[in-house]
């Protein structure tokens, strides 16, 4: 995983192979440090309102990092700052650094389109495009110039397989994605992200709109995907965080109107069994939030 050429071997199609070669050439062994993304004194404003302050986090390679905390504490904002989706909101402004593979993604000449290809995102509500299942997955590869039918077919099968959706949809790839159930749609969205071979996958409460069985499938899927990707997920569901994540960050706002801060960050097992901070314990035992 850590080396470009190792990755190349399991690349099933030339398209990704080429990307991987390119990546390996520019960033050799970047993952050896095991830290994929580092947030350094990150602060975020919406106009004059400060939504986040002093966020320091290490996101490890091939692990699931869960961000938990009460509503409105800036969890989603923090997540969205990792692929610069906050920039879609007018008046959003960032201070501090987010360093991925040694580069600050907020550097002026950092190419955001490239960043979002490397850092894919899955949203709270499944949001497939109103196109066929096939075209949903093909969307990303086509953006990056893949036109050949057989390569697209290959990418689509591979992505759907990895998202554990292939067997359910292989006979109806031309059907509208909107005919799928909510859980299937969410796995389709994951497959869509996988289709461009990201390195990091961000999930913003991916199971909030799903029933328990569909949730279970997504959780299983994430546990499997972490072998190949770095995963960061926001969740309201503490059992879920405890079940699937390796690291947990607990966010909180002290008082109304103040920015969200990290109360505690560490290995999930420690956070959930023996937290350092009293507030963490109160939150995970359900005394507030």
């Amino acid at each position, binding site marked *: 995983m850590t080396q470009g050429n190792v990755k190349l071997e399991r690349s099933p199609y030339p398209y990704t192979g080429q990307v991987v070669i390119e990546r390996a050439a520019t960033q050799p062994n970047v993952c050896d440090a095991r830290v994929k993304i580092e947030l350094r004194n990150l602060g975020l404003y919406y106009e004059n309102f400060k939504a986040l302050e002093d966020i320091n986090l290490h996101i490890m390679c091939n692990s699931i990092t869960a961000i938990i905390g009460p509503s409105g504490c800036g969890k989603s904002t923090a997540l969205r700052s990792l*692929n610069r*989706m906050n920039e879609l909101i007018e008046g959003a402004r960032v201070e501090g650094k987010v360093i991925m593979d040694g580069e600050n993604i907020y550097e002026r000449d950092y190419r955001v*389109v*490239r960043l979002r290809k490397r850092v894919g995102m899955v949203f709270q509500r499944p949001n497939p*495009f109103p196109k066929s299942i096939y075209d949903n997955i093909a969307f*990303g590869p086509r*953006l990056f110039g893949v036109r050949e039918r057989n390569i697209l077919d290959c990418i689509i099968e591979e992505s759907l397989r990895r998202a554990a959706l292939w067997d359910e949809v292989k006979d109806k790839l031309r059907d509208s994605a909107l005919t799928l159930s909510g859980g299937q749609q969410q796995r389709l969205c994951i497959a869509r992200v996988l289709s461009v071979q990201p390195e990091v996958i961000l999930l913003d409460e991916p199971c909030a709109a799903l029933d328990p069985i569909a949730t279970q499938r997504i959780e299983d899927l994430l546990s499997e995907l972490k072998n190949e990707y770095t995963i960061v997920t926001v969740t309201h569901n503490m059992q879920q965080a405890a079940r699937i994540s390796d690291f947990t960050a607990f966010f909180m706002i002290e008082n109304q109107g103040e920015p969200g801060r990290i109360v505690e960050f560490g290995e999930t097992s420690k956070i959930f069994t023996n937290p350092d901070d009293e507030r963490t314990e109160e939150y995970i035992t359900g005394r507030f939030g």
Partner: protein
Amino acid sequence: MKAIDREWIIKKVLLVLAMMTVLGIAMIIFFVVKESIPAFRQAGLSNLASSDWSPESGRYGMLVFFTGTLATSLGGLLLGAPLAIAAAVFLTQMAPRRVKTVVGRGIDLLAGVPSIVLGWLGLTVLVPWIRALTNSTGTGILAASILLAIMVIPTITAISKDALEAVPRSYREAALGMGATRWQTIRQVLLPAAKPGILVAVILGMGRAIGETMAVALVIGPATVFPKSLTSPTHTLTTKILIDMGESTGVQRSALFAMGLVLLLLAMGMILLIRLVTRRMQPVR
């Protein structure tokens, strides 16, 4: 009075008021049909559908005017619709708030310009300009199309804007989150998702262009002949009715009503088309 009685009365009053609109359109159709019957009776369908308009020898062909109406409306759409859709995309997707307000208000104001003013400007500014550029009379389909384009832009922009704004934000986020550029997002996600609404906008613009009279009348020529080029005088259904209605009697008058009937049918056709478009391509939730 008991509350229940009052409710009954209010209900009936509203029903009557609502029926009035239906009655209105029914009466218009009835009257127009009735007045155009003599033309169908005495001149006949093939006469009316011909291209020879010479009332003095009993020829009432409206094909020239029909062609003129179609040509000017389509020309107006061809020029106006792309601009209007581009404006809608710009306003909803790119413009900073302040620019959005200014440009949006400007386009709204455009909708309020009386057509006679626009026509007059067309006659005094646009026509001389075309005349100088093309070495022709300057009047005709091109001038009319340009004026119609200006007139359909506010309609098409406003409705396309609504359609684009109705596209769920999640589509945009999904596309941008995949690494799509803003342009790719617009082209491949937003416009396809807003397509039914934009089509409706264009059809409504078409309806407006077909019915427009005053501005077109001032720059179309007029001349009761097929146009030899885009810049030679011709006529449309509306302008022919406008110019001839004061001084025609008998079958000729009835033939003008038949032209009105054709306009009415075109308008209804547009509404039917909108129905079809919105039903066939269910707008996405």
